[in-house]
């Protein structure tokens, strides 16, 4: 079942220099899919994520999320749409510094005016699954990067959104924490059948996904599907990347998974 449909989407930034960030891009995401979007810098990855997360509007084309067309919604409905249908994980976590970890996690539910009992129930469930119990009462500046990103993931999950959007979730983490977070994401994807769209630079991160979509200069370039072994999937990702010709991609070919 298709959960997200991108159809001929074009985004042009007007200004002193007109810039076409996305050009006639079309793809679909199925329910329960874990999709990585890759591409060199300036290829329009973040713009695409902004368009899906409805904080930016496409110049032309259609985006349909779960049978809803966000472009038809007014501002208020859009906010409610984001609140209920989307979950976000950011590169720099974006936890609110004045709230404790547990408060940060339940924030989407409190904003929606859900009862405290529901919040506590879901919080307990997520805290156990994501191993957050030990630092629930701490402030974001007192925990490590990995812990912060796990908190952010819990925040993105607690309202059980249709689609989780992750923007370079491992960008600020060391390799151990990266692996932890990626394994977490893929286990959530498998167990909860959550749809995750992740934008990343990192071929290792991308190799955890079911499918990798490559874009270049705002246009569709290629897509590859996961196979049995992550090792070979990773190698294939690298091959595509070298074809993409971002200039420095050649350096990556020697990388092997540990």
């Amino acid at each position, binding site marked *: 079942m298709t959960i997200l449909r991108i159809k001929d989407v074009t985004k042009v930034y007007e200004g002193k220099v007109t810039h076409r960030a996305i050009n006639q891009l079309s793809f679909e995401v199925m329910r329960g899919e874990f999709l990585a979007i890759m591409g060199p810098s300036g290829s329009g990855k973040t713009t695409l994520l902004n368009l899906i997360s409805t904080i930016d509007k496409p110049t032309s084309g259609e985006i349909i999320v779960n049978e809803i067309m966000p472009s038809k919604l007014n501002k*208020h409905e859009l906010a409610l749409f984001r609140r209920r249908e989307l979950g976000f994980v950011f590169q720099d976590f*974006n936890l609110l510094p*004045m709230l404790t970890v547990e408060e940060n996690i339940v*924030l*989407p539910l*409190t904003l929606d005016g859900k009862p*405290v009992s529901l919040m506590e129930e879901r919080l307990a469930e997520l805290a156990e699954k994501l191993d957050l119990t030990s630092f629930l009462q701490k402030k974001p500046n007192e925990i490590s990067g990995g812990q912060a990103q796990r908190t952010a993931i819990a925040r993105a999950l607690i309202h059980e959104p249709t689609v989780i959007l992750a923007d370079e979730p491992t960008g600020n983490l060391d390799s151990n924490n990266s692996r932890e977070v990626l394994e977490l994401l893929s286990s959530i994807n498998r167990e909860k059948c959550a749809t995750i769209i992740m934008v990343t630079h990192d071929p290792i991160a991308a190799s955890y996904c079911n499918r990798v979509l490559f874009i270049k200069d705002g246009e569709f370039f290629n897509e590859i599907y996961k196979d049995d072994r992550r090792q070979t999937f990773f190698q294939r990702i690298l091959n595509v990347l070298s074809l993409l010709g971002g200039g420095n991609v050649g350096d990556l070919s020697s990388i092997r998974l540990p």
Partner: protein
Amino acid sequence: MTFHQFAYHNVVRNARIYGAFFLASLFSVFVFFIYSMLMFHPDIENGFLGNVSILGMIVAEIILVLFSWFFIFYSMKAFLEARSKEFAILLHLGMEKKQLSKLIFLETFLIGTVSIVVGILFGFAFSRFFFMIVREILMLDELPLYISWEPFVLTITVYLSAFILISILSVYATPEKNLIDLFKGYSDFNTHHIYSLPKALLGFVFIGTGYILALLTSRMTLYSFGIITIILITIGTYLFFTDTTQFILEKIRSKKHVYWKKYRMLSIAEQSMIMKSNSKMFFVVTMVTALAFLCVGLLAALSSYTSQYDKMNPLGLIYKGHTDNPYEYSHITSIMRELENKGLSYHMASFEVKKQTSSYTQYEVEVFSESDINSLLFSYGYPFVRLSPGEAMFIPYSEESIKQLSNLSVKTVLMENGVEIKIDKVYPKLIFPSSIISLNSIIVSDEDFIRLTNPYQASPDVEPGYHLFTFDIPQWIETKDVGVAIYNRVSHEYLKDHYSLPYYFENTGLKYSFILSTYSLFTLVGLLVAAVFLLAAGSFIYFKLHTSLELEKKKFDVLKRMGLTDNELKRLVNAYLVPQFFIPLGVALLHSFFAFLALQNLLRHFANISIVKELVFAFVFLMIIEVIYFYLIRWRFITHVRD
């Protein structure tokens, strides 16, 4: 690009950042200048307000100066914090600390000079208007605009020195920070929110005790209690903002059913952080605002001194003339006609007063007849005087004299006519204002009064007596336009060395309006000072907001992505801003409320409904200013976080 150009561009191209600082400085220069214009006015030096008011104005001016200095210093500091990232880039590029301070100095100097010049220009332009208002309030014939170097020099000296000193000071006062910390920018989040329970409770206890002491303060304990109260309240307020608020918020946070409700969670968490990191500023703002309230309230209380005035001056109009005063008939008829035209009801009493010499003191006494006095007492509704021949009664000249004279018993002879009298009573109420009658005034029986046929021994050199016409007018405040022509002639004559007119006229309503207008001037000036205080208090908050704007923007960005509706954003901004503005204001109001209760206790004779009315008016006025300011800042804030 030279270094000077760099500093210049920094200021001009960052108008938004500097705008608030510039406007705040501009306004304080503006007020200060207008105020100085009034203070140095040649007419004021000639004393149309009396010496007290000049002293008051100087004190107000000094407070204004001290406060402006503090204000500029604080805003400077807030700016430096807000721009730490920019400075980090400059330092990173290899700018010396010396050059940095030079840069800051140049920038401040530029802003300072421009705001001084513009402030004075505006001030001068508006001083004509301001004088017009003052003239109207004081009912002066004219208060001309004048040009003198003093206000200019004073304003320029005070503010220029402030800007220069503070720009130097604020650079050296900021602690050395690592470049990396500067890059990360200003952040409050690293402070862990701890409070101490004893301190939190102490905050409550101190403020509570202060309030109770304020209520218990009496005339006897004024100094001891007053000082203790001030100390308690000051410390209490400080603890209230550092610990008590944290304690209360922490209590709320522990109740999830209250706390985890919609955006309440966010705003309460935010408040606890704001309160912690800005507690010192809130303390200062509260104290300053309380001072402003107190100053306005005190002025309002003074102006309702009227209630007492009424008692001291029981008569509406008084006309006093020589026995052979040729204008008597025409003046009295014209006054009566004017009163009738105005539709004011009145009761006129005429007195024939004879001067005699008392054998007891060898001084002159003024003798009133029993029936004359009774005619006035009738209109007052006071008890009549009944005297037998040989009896006499003192007329009191002040409230205190009633007591003194009541113990006095004098046997004397009115020497000119050999009338023996015994004066052993005093009329228990004030009949005439003290300016009209002499200190030796007595009432004698009608029988004795008729016997006083021989004139005063010193006549004709000294007038042997006078005719007095009193008008008891219930609506005495409305008589200020009655007999103006006579009044003007009298007051004109009064300025001469020798008073040669055969009559004297007093108009209580007119005098009252003069007194009232003097206090109105006070109130006007006080309000101006208070407005500066309040505006500055608001500006403190604005600057503080400005420093955290980047972080706020980021926060709202996250929230918007997570799905925050526009309405919720506005409510969240309200919940963020309202406590910052109105908690200090509320505490200040409470402080001044108790201060006034204490004051009313002390000045019980001032206690009057009219104080309450004026206080409420003054407070509402200040509140309106603050609310307008709040909406202005809220509007700016919302536009910043929205995009």
